[in-house]
């Protein structure tokens, strides 16, 4: 099995959108964006496509921020990565601007109560830490350690670019036990946990708890 790594480009857009939607489900049937905005998966894919076209760095929906693992020349897995705050603005703020610009304004404003609920379980990301999101391995390529290799590739590339990377962080749903175990095995520990005692949150997210895990690098 020959594994190579490269940054995502326009030709990978469909693969990256698949990765985002599958990772968003986090082992459930709920895509939080669809639940929050009351839109279909196809409508979400159109919005994601427009956002990825913007190529706006410093947040998770930046196309070249995704590294693709190719197995024997075929895209098999991907992870998005960025240094929080590197564009001088919190990733959540950049993402807000992108969604505001590319989502129907009426849809967006109707979703404010749902967004407030989701915001209540959000954990602030740490400035300067390498953030990873949307970890995805295509069917047939799972269990081969590609995700761990992709995290290492993000670290290696950032350091090669002269960035000081001292820790890696990942945000997970508390219900995603297989992913939590996999990160623990890779040296991550849980550093923050946020739970919302409102049953309405489980209609928007796959569970009521978000956790932040991190790995300190040497």
């Amino acid at each position, binding site marked *: 099995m020959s594994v190579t790594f490269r940054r995502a480009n326009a030709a990978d857009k469909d693969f990256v959108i698949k990765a985002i939607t599958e990772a968003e489900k986090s082992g459930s049937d709920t895509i939080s964006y669809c639940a929050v905005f009351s839109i279909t998966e196809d409508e979400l894919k159109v919005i994601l496509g427009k956002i990825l076209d913007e190529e706006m760095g410093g947040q998770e929906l930046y196309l070249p921020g995704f590294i693709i693992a190719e197995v024997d020349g075929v895209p098999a897995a991907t992870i998005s990565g960025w240094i929080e705050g590197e564009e001088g603005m919190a990733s959540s703020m950049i993402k807000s601007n992108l969604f*505001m610009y590319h989502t129907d304004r009426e849809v967006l404003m109707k979703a404010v109560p749902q967004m407030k609920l989701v915001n209540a379980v959000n954990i602030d990301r740490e400035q300067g830490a390498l953030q990873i999101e949307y970890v995805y391995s295509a069917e047939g390529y799972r269990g081969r350690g590609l995700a761990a290799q992709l995290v290492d590739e993000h670290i290696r590339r950032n350091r090669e670019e002269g960035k000081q990377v001292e820790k890696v962080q990942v945000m997970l749903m508390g219900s995603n036990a297989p992913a939590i175990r996999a990160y623990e095995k890779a040296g991550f520990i849980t550093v923050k946990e946020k739970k919302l005692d409102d049953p309405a949150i489980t209609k928007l997210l796959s569970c009521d708890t978000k956790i932040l895990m991190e790995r300190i690098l040497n």
Partner: protein
Amino acid sequence: MEENELYGQLNKIYETILKKEGVTVAPETTAADIDGWDSLTHMILMDSIEKHFYIKFKLMEIMKFNNVGDMVACIQKKLAAK
């Protein structure tokens, strides 16, 4: 529109959205200076400001706002062009 009047109107918008009295924004004010100005509030603020002044920000304009002063300059430019 005079800058003072514009800031006065902005303060009222911020007070309404943040549900707080006595909010005062200045040219150097950033989201970090105002309690409650998070990513969601930011979205609602931008929408309310656009609707109030009957203007539309471009994505790149919003992305370049380093503080309220940058936003005010952009609003003034758009109002002047009307």
